[in-house]
Structure formats: structure tokens, C-alpha cells
């Protein structure tokens, strides 16, 4: 099919509207949107469960459900959020949609594999959720042996589902690494890559290197259940701490699968909305890789009280502190990028600024629980729950919401309602902090995590937390509402509403079919070189349209 004479009204969304053309598409943009729908459903389901769990904790004793249902609810909440939502969310949705565009590529390196990994993900989710039909799922998302081997067969559906979803994660990561290496447009050198690309690249390394280990762990768990191979179960001569080592060897790096893409998003957002070159570009880029690397060496900090040797606890504790360095490099560089920038407070930027607060709290408390003495006190309390929600929700989800608003015009060709966007962002910010900050306080006072019941002195904090979850819920449902509405009634998006400089924005909106780039772009400058192109933004404020970066006269150099 010739790509030379394209009809401008034909784009990747409308060239063929049949369901079949979506289900069998190999277009990275459509696959990205299908992932968006799938992970949103998972987020919705997991979120409703979270609201129910919070509602149950409104008062001591039984409020809306019994202890057994409560255990199942938080287990299901965690499994959905970790494996079905947050691990695939940013890499698979925005990685798929944006990465090839930012590289000036027509597609990812392996489009068929890309579609396959979407279906593998779906199959994994279906297997995991079919556990609900079989029986109760209990024991949290960590599946610690030997409890997980004795609690019943239904947990095996979940672990099998996790095993299958792992393949999806590996294939996506593999695809992205090859795409970044082999599909860059001419002139797009490594130090001209948008920071989002760098972070997706670092994420993909973790996905490829860590996920096989959870795969074999799940296989061993499965075999132990059916053949009693006696590897993890002490009653059979196995070692349960070994399971924890295996599990956290994946699951700690997996935390970086969740947060690294968020770093990339925030870098792009802060650069774009402060019209300022991201300071310390190379440091921000390489700190992602450093975090990915160090992330493999700290899994033992989940096991300070599990009976590993004191020496290894000390080593793991020290290595955990090291993670704070590249992370601090990032946060400080984001703040310096804002300095003397021309900041515009559009909704995506609000999320980026929110991220600086909430993620920093999550990060600092992470270093705190990495301290051996403090961890003995805080282990398995609400403090840990608050810490990882500040990182996962305050980090990944808030950055993900920023990304969703930022790329929404490019994905759908429509603008969302900016006023509603800002109101919802405010609700999310206050709701989030009201939900999780009290958990730091009650955790430090000894409220254990996962407990169904609590002492009366914790009730005030639990109530605050539950009220916060309602505010947060309203904010999130509002976002769902106005984004869906914008598909019908939203203004048609100009090709570059934010005046960004990365390649996806210098392209038409909505993107054409069948190929992203009718002409392979030639990259002549860095992704945030705003100082080189002041004329691009002269009329950006009024009608939202800006000249393409290719129309701008080249700076003399």
C-alpha cells in the first residue's frame, strides 16, 4: 500500500471501525489503546475493592463484611492492582503508544509479538480471576509458602495467571529494548532520546531480567502443590525463606517496573510545561539505568525479620540507601528544571508537581524502612502500607494520570475539559493525602497491616483514611467521566496543544494510517531544546496551534 498519497481525513482510529480490525491490529497505537481499556477496567475493579476495604475499616469490628471476605477483598485488590494494572499500565499503554512515535519509528520492532503479548496478558488476567469461581483467594499478593500451598487450590489459579502475565511483560520489555536499539530515526542519538524513552528502556531491562525468576518461582510453587517436591514447605524438608528470596528477587525489581516509567513521564511533563531544558539530562537518563541495576541488589530488605542472617540484612540495608542517590538526582534535577522556567499549570503539569510532593514522601519513607532498627518497629504496619501507596499511587498512578491527560489529545484526537481536569486533580491530591497520610501515623503507633479489626484508639485515623478514600474516589470517577465525555463532545485537538518538542507532537493529530511517519523524520536537536525555538510558541496561547519544529528555521551553529 502506497504511503505517499494519503487522505488527511483517514487516521489510525477511523480507517476501519470494525471490531475485527481492532482485535487483530498490529498497529502499536491501537494495541496501546486496547491496553488502556484493559488496565482501566482492572484499575476500576481494584479501586472499588479498595473502597470496600476502607469502608470496612471505618469502625472496629464488622462494618460491611466479615473477616473472610475482608481477607479476600484486600488480596484481590492487591493482585489486580499489582499484576493486572500497575505493571502493564504505563509501559504497555504509553510505552506502546508513545515510544515508537518518540523514536520516529513506524512501529515497534515486533508488531505481531506486541499483539500476542496483549492477548497473553488478557489470558493471564482471566486465569487469575477464574480463581474467584473456584474458591476463596487468601494470603495477600506475595503468595508466601507454605500458607499459599495449603490455603486451597484457588490460589493456584492466581499464581498461574501471574506466570502467564509474566510472559506478556517479558515480551513487551524485549520488544521495547529492540525498538529503542534498532528503530531510532536518523539523527536521534542516545543523548537526544526523550527521557520517557530512557525510562521505558530501563524498565524494559528490568522486565526482561527479573520476570523469568517469578516465572520459575510460580512453577515451583505449582509443582510443590501437586507433586509435593519439598522445596519451600518445611514439613517436606523445604525452606520457606528460600521462597521469599525467590519471590522478592522479582518483586522488588518489579517495583521499579512500576515506578521507572513514571520518572520518564514526569521528566517529559516538567520539561514541556516549564518550557525549559531538563537540567542534568544525562544524569536523569542514566539514573534510570542505575536504579534498574541497583534494584536487583536490594530484595533482602523485605526480609529483615524473616530469619535471614544479620550480615545479609546489613548489606541489603546499605544497598537500599544507595537507591536514594539516583532517585535524589532525579528529584533535584526536576526542581532545577522548574527554576526560571515559564511554567504553565495545565492539568498534566499539576500531576507532575503533585508527583514531586507525594513521590518524595514515598521515597523518603522508603529509606526509613530500609534502616534496620526502624524497620523492626515498622515492619508489617500501616507505615509500610502508606509508604508503598505513596510510591505506587502517589508516584506511578499520579504520573500515569498526568501522562493520560498529556497524551489524551494525541491518542483520541480530542481535548478533555481543562477546568474539570483541574478540579479532579485537586480532589485526587487532597483525597490521596487524606487517605494515606493518617496511615503513616497509625503505622508508627503500631497498627498492623492487613488486620481486619483494630483497637479503638486507631479509629480516628482509620476514619480519616476512609473519608479520604471517598474524596479520592470522587476525583477518579470524575476523570473517568469527563474523559469519556470528551470522546463525544471534546474539542478537536490541534496537533501540538502543549507546544512540546518530541516527535509525537510534531506529527499530525490524529495520527495517520497506515504508517506513523509519511516521511522519516530527521532529528537535529535534543528533545527539550526550547531555547533554540522561541518562535514556535508565539501563537501557542490563542488557538493552541503551533508551528511544527520542522518549520522553524534552523539555529545557526
Amino acid at each position: 500500500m502506497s504511503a505517499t498519497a494519503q487522505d488527511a481525513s483517514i487516521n489510525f482510529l477511523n480507517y476501519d471501525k470494525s471490531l475485527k480490525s481492532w482485535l487483530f491490529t498490529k498497529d502499536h497505537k491501537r494495541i496501546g489503546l486496547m491496553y488502556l481499556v484493559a488496565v482501566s477496567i482492572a484499575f476500576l475493579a481494584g479501586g472499588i475493592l479498595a473502597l470496600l476495604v476502607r469502608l470496612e475499616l471505618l469502625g472496629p469490628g464488622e462494618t460491611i463484611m466479615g473477616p473472610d471476605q475482608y481477607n479476600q477483598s484486600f488480596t484481590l485488590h492487591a493482585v489486580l492492582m499489582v499484576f493486572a494494572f500497575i505493571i502493564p499500565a504505563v509501559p504497555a499503554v504509553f510505552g506502546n503508544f508513545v515510544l515508537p512515535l518518540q523514536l520516529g519509528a513506524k512501529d515497534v520492532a515486533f508488531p505481531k509479538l506486541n499483539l500476542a503479548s496483549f492477548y497473553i496478558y488478557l489470558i493471564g488476567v482471566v486465569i487469575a480471576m477464574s480463581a474467584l469461581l473456584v474458591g476463596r483467594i487468601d494470603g495477600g499478593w506475595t503468595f508466601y509458602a507454605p500458607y499459599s500451598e495449603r490455603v486451597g487450590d484457588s490460589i493456584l489459579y492466581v499464581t498461574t495467571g501471574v506466570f502467564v502475565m509474566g510472559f506478556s511483560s517479558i515480551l513487551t520489555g524485549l520488544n521495547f529494548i529492540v525498538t529503542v536499539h534498532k528503530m531510532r530515526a536518523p539523527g536521534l542519538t542516545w543523548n537526544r532520546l526523550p527521557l520517557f524513552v530512557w525510562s521505558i528502556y530501563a524498565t524494559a531491562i528490568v522486565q526482561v531480567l527479573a520476570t523469568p525468576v517469578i516465572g520459575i518461582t510460580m512453577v515451583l510453587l505449582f509443582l510443590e502443590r501437586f507433586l509435593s517436591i519439598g522445596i519451600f514447605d518445611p514439613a517436606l524438608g523445604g525452606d520457606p525463606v528460600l521462597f521469599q528470596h525467590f519471590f522478592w528477587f522479582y518483586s522488588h525489581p518489579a517495583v521499579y517496573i512500576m515506578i521507572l516509567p513514571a520518572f520518564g513521564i514526569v521528566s517529559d511533563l516538567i520539561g514541556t510545561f516549564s518550557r525549559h531544558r531538563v537540567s542534568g539530562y544525562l544524569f536523569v537518563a542514566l539514573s534510570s539505568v542505575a536504579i534498574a541495576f541497583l534494584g536487583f541488589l536490594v530484595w533482602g530488605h523485605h526480609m529483615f525479620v524473616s530469619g535471614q542472617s544479620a550480615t545479609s540484612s546489613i548489606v541489603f540495608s546499605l544497598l537500599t540507601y544507595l537507591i536514594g542517590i539516583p532517585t535524589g538526582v532525579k528529584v533535584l534535577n526536576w526542581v532545577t528544571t522548574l527554576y526560571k522556567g515559564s511554567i504553565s499549570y495545565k492539568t498534566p503539569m499539576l500531576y507532575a508537581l503533585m508527583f514531586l510532593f507525594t513521590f518524595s514522601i514515598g521515597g523518603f519513607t522508603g529509606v526509613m524502612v530500609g534502616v534496620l532498627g526502624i524497620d523492626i518497629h515498622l515492619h508489617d504496619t500501616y507505615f509500610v502500607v502508606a509508604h508503598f501507596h505513596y510510591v505506587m499511587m502517589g508516584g506511578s498512578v499520579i504520573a500515569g494520570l498526568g501522562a493520560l491527560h498529556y497524551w489524551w489529545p494525541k491518542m483520541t484526537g480530542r481535548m478533555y475539559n481543562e477546568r474539570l481536569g483541574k478540579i479532579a486533580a485537586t480532589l485526587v491530591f487532597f483525597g490521596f493525602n487524606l487517605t494515606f497520610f493518617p496511615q503513616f501515623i497509625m503505622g508508627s503507633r503500631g497498627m498492623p497491616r492487613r488486620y481486619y479489626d483494630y483497637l479503638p484508639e486507631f479509629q480516628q485515623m482509620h476514619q480519616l483514611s476512609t473519608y479520604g478514600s471517598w474524596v479520592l474516589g470522587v476525583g477518579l470517577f470524575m476523570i473517568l467521566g469527563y474523559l469519556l465525555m470528551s470522546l463525544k463532545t471534546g474539542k478537536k485537538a490541534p496537533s501540538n496543544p502543549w507546544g512540546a518538542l518530541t516527535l509525537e507532537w510534531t506529527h499530525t493529530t490524529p495520527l495517520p494510517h497506515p504508517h506513523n511517519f509519511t516521511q522519516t523524520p530527521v532529528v537535529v536537536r535534543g528533545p527539550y531544546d526550547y531555547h533554540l525555538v522561541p518562535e514556535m510558541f508565539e501563537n501557542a496561547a490563542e488557538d493552541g496551534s503551533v508551528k511544527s519544529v520542522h518549520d522553524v528555521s534552523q539555529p545557526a551553529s
Partner: protein
Amino acid sequence: MASHPLDGHPAHLEHHFVSSEQQFDAAKMGMWLFLITEILLFSGMFVLYTVYRSWHPEVFALVSEVLDWRMGGFNTLVLLASSFTVALGIHYAQKNDNRKLIINLVLTLIFALIFLVVKYFEYTGKFAHGIYPGAAFDPHGIVDGLDYAKYNVPYAAQFFSIYFVMTGIHAFHVIVGIGVFIWITLRASRGEFSAAYYTPVELTGLYWHLVDIIWIFLFPLLYLI
């Protein structure tokens, strides 16, 4: 500006690649990354082996006698030979010699099947004496004056769990390899490969070498030391 190869566009070149070289490089890199994930999958099991061996070295030394090093050694030679034939196959694909490519692919397939047949006899020989993984472990019977019951010591079951899991998952990879070789041989018989395009042969070869190398580690660790 990259030229668009609309004229003389080779059939194997997918639309989103600029050139055959780019496509080949991408595919090869993807395969290497996949092999890395395979190595990590197996390294989980190697860690398991190392941990249990360091905890119970005397048990491992005693019960590894049960494994027949002659059968394992024969299988090592079979796999090495198959690695050689698959490498020859790639060589002939590069030389445009389709007939010799097919011969070598078929030879590789035969070697892979021999490996599985030997493995079958090894496994059934163990099962006959109650040597199962884990809780079902119950060694009994006397062969050539050797009483299997003496292997019924604590943690012997763990050794055989590890043995069956590792060799079982390895054998699963051999079976997958056989499936892929059948597919590649069929494609070769349709004349799809040439010096200009032999990516699938090369990638299957890489996979097969990995299966071979993993066995090279499994054999001494389980049978010899």
C-alpha cells in the same frame, strides 16, 4: 532521508523496517534477549541446586550415584552433535544450498528425538525403583547387588525433585525445539530460505545452542559431581 523500497521490495521485509539488515539485526537482538530470559529462568533452578547442595553435600554425593553417567554422557554427545548439524545448516543456508540445509535440519531433529528417547528410558528406570520427586520418593528394589533402599535418606527427595524439575524443564525445551525444527524444515522444503533471508534458521539455531549449553551444565552438576 531514508528511501522507501517500494520497488523491488523483498517479500520477507516487513513494512515498518527500512531495510533487510535492520530487520535481521532487530530479530537477532530480540532472540538474544529471549535467550537471556531463558538463562534467568534456569538460573533460578541452578540457585536452588546450589543452595540445597551446600546444605546437604553428603546427601548429594551419595544419591547422585543413582544417575547413570553413561546415559547422560551419551545424551551430551547427541546434543553436541545436534548443535554441530544446526550450525552446518545455517552455513548452508548462507551458501544458498537448500538441499544440504534440509539434510542438516532433519539430522538435528533426529538427534533431538534420540535425546528424548534416552531420557524416557532414564526416567522410567528411576520410576521403576520408586525414585520420584518429592513426597512420593520411595526407593526400593535391588539391581546388580545394589540395594536402592540405602538411598532413602533425608533430603534425598530434594535432590530428585531438583533433578526432575531441571531435566524436565530442559526436556520441555527440547520438545519445543523439535516443534520449531519441524516448522523450519517445512519452510525450508518450500524453498523460503536463501542467503538473502535465513533469519528463522539462524534464530532457531541460537535457541538450540542454548538448550545444548544448559544441558552441558546440567550433566556434570547432576551426574558427575
